[in-house]
């Protein structure tokens, strides 16, 4: 009951956020955004044809009508069909979102798990050389642009100038082998890029926790280090860790990793969205942005509920 009430209240509080996100994105992407008129015109168009196309796309309607239409679509979760392909937006999302998840998930999980391990290692040896080495490498890793990593990995792993072991691009997941074949290089790139940031973040969280009194108490009672790190440090760091992880999920699930997907030519949601921006495919854009906002609100709720699971001090009031 308390939970239900809490969830309802959180969802209610999310409404202004959703309205804000939809309004801003509608203004920017739809109202002032690119339109499809000139991509849908024939080679030798007349002004009448231009007007017809605009009418067909609904561009001639007043702002309020169009925005209200957007909200209605969001409420019914029916965004119609893509302007450029005619594919229903739901089908498009259903097709691309799993790809994005499958693409980013391994890198995301590895990037976080590995970072937590490195952070524990660094924190355990705080101010000594393993810490300095790990943190130094983290800064180096943070200093390399994602773009450079992708290009470099492609040269190293996928080109004739390098190992030539993996495909340059593309996607397939009909078998585990095929999946691994395609996902490995993007995963390595994602891990490489996120590792530095994640490690630093987790280290600072862990180091802060390690200075807490209860850790000293546990040490004074002879708790072995592994148990100390797990029960006293990691278990108490779960709130920032959970927050960081959960809040990255909407971005992955809805907007995917735009750069990875467009560079590796993976038909995920990021690429679909990017393509939609480039041609002004408004139904797709509206769906993606609207759903991202909704997912963010849900993530907030989810995080708060998780907080209570990981920390008994948190109450849902």
């Amino acid at each position, binding site marked *: 009951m308390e939970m239900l*009430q809490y969830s*309802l*209240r959180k969802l*209610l509080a999310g409404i202004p956020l959703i309205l804000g996100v939809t309004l801003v994105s509608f203004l920017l992407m739809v109202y002032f955004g690119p339109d499809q008129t000139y991509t849908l015109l024939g080679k030798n168009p007349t002004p009448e044809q231009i007007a017809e196309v605009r009418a067909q796309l609904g561009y001639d309607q007043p702002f309020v009508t169009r925005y209200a239409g957007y909200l209605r679509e969001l409420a019914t979760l029916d965004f119609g069909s893509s302007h450029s392909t005619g594919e229903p937006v739901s089908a498009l999302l259903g097709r691309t979102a799993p790809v994005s998840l499958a693409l980013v998930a391994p890198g995301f999980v590895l990037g976080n798990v590995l970072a937590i391990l490195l952070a524990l290692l660094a924190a355990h040896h705080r101010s000594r050389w393993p810490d300095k080495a790990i943190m130094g490498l983290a800064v180096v890793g943070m200093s390399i642009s994602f773009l450079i990593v992708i290009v470099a990995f492609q040269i190293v792993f996928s080109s004739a100038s390098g190992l030539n072991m993996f495909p340059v691009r593309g996607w397939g997941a009909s078998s585990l082998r095929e999946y691994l074949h395609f996902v490995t290089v993007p995963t390595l790139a994602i891990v490489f890029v996120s590792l530095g940031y994640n490690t630093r973040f987790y280290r600072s969280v862990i180091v802060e926790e390690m200075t807490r009194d209860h850790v000293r108490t546990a040490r004074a009672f002879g708790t072995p280090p592994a148990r100390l790190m797990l029960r006293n440090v990691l278990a108490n760091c779960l709130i920032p860790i959970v927050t960081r992880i959960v809040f990255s999920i909407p971005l992955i699930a809805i907007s995917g990793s735009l750069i990875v997907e467009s560079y590796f030519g993976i038909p995920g949601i990021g690429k679909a969205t990017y393509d939609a921006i480039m041609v002004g495919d408004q139904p797709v854009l509206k769906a993606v942005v609207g759903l991202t906002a909704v997912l963010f609100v849900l993530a907030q709720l989810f995080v708060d509920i998780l907080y209570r699971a990981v920390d008994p001090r948190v109450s849902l*009031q």
Partner: protein
Amino acid sequence: MSALLEVRDLRKHFPVRGGLLRRVVAQVKAVDGVSFTLEAGRTLGLVGESGCGKSTLGRAILRLQRPTGGQVLLEGRDLATLPPAELIAMRREMQIIFQDPFASLSPRRTVAQIIREPLDVHGIGTPEERARRVLELLDVVGMRAAVQDRYPHEFSGGQRQRIGIARALALNPKLIVADEPVSALDVSVRSQVLNLIAKLQRERGIAFLFISHDLSVVRHVSDQVGVMYLGKLVELAPTHELFTNPRHPYTEALLSAVPVPDPRRKAKRIVLAGDVPSPMNPPPGCPFHTRCPKALPYCSQAVPQPVDVGSPGRPHSVACHLYT
């Protein structure tokens, strides 16, 4: 002597929100109906355990927090309802000294800037006069003029506390609320600061509301002592009277609990059961009845009103059913 400060039935409640629409579902009654008077140039000590509402009381009196109800009359004017513009003018009359010598001084401002700020705000004197006044104040609190260009972090706790006192004195207030001014200080420094406060009061006739959890300190500086428990003033008496003849069971327990720094004088101790209840759900009736060794059945039903159990000229008020 007329009363400088008169507090009547002062209340400060903090709403607790809950439910679907974040409605107010409960009140934390931090201060719940406190009345007393303080005469000019005297010191009222306020003791109580953490969470009893003594700091909130101090802030509500200065209207650093807006009271929920009741009146605060400073020289007859009700601070609780004063409009903001007049309130700012009234702030010349009353000041505060804080507990934490580290947090109470802005780290990015020099000592002179800190001490001069009240003068700047209230537009007192020319810049030269203000500068002179800063030196004067530093001298009063026993610091050398050379320190005025330094920053707070360069000083020790005791010295920062002196700077805080100098700032409080800048406007020549009639009332100073001292909120645990020495509890963060070491023993040897503490007596320096206590002596300074005593000297100021003696020489300048400032009234102090001295808030502390340390009974021995309160005993040392106060003319009158009030004991707070769960937002209520349970006992108020002249210092000597209170310490030698406590009437409220809580006061008795409190006094007996203080460790005596004399191994030969092992006191007989009244050990209280349990802990202080939450101010969000104070027990009905007398707030102390859950822990009171002398509680009667009636205590859980009615809130005891303060009664005077003192002798003429030595008012001793106590809120306990044992005396009604």
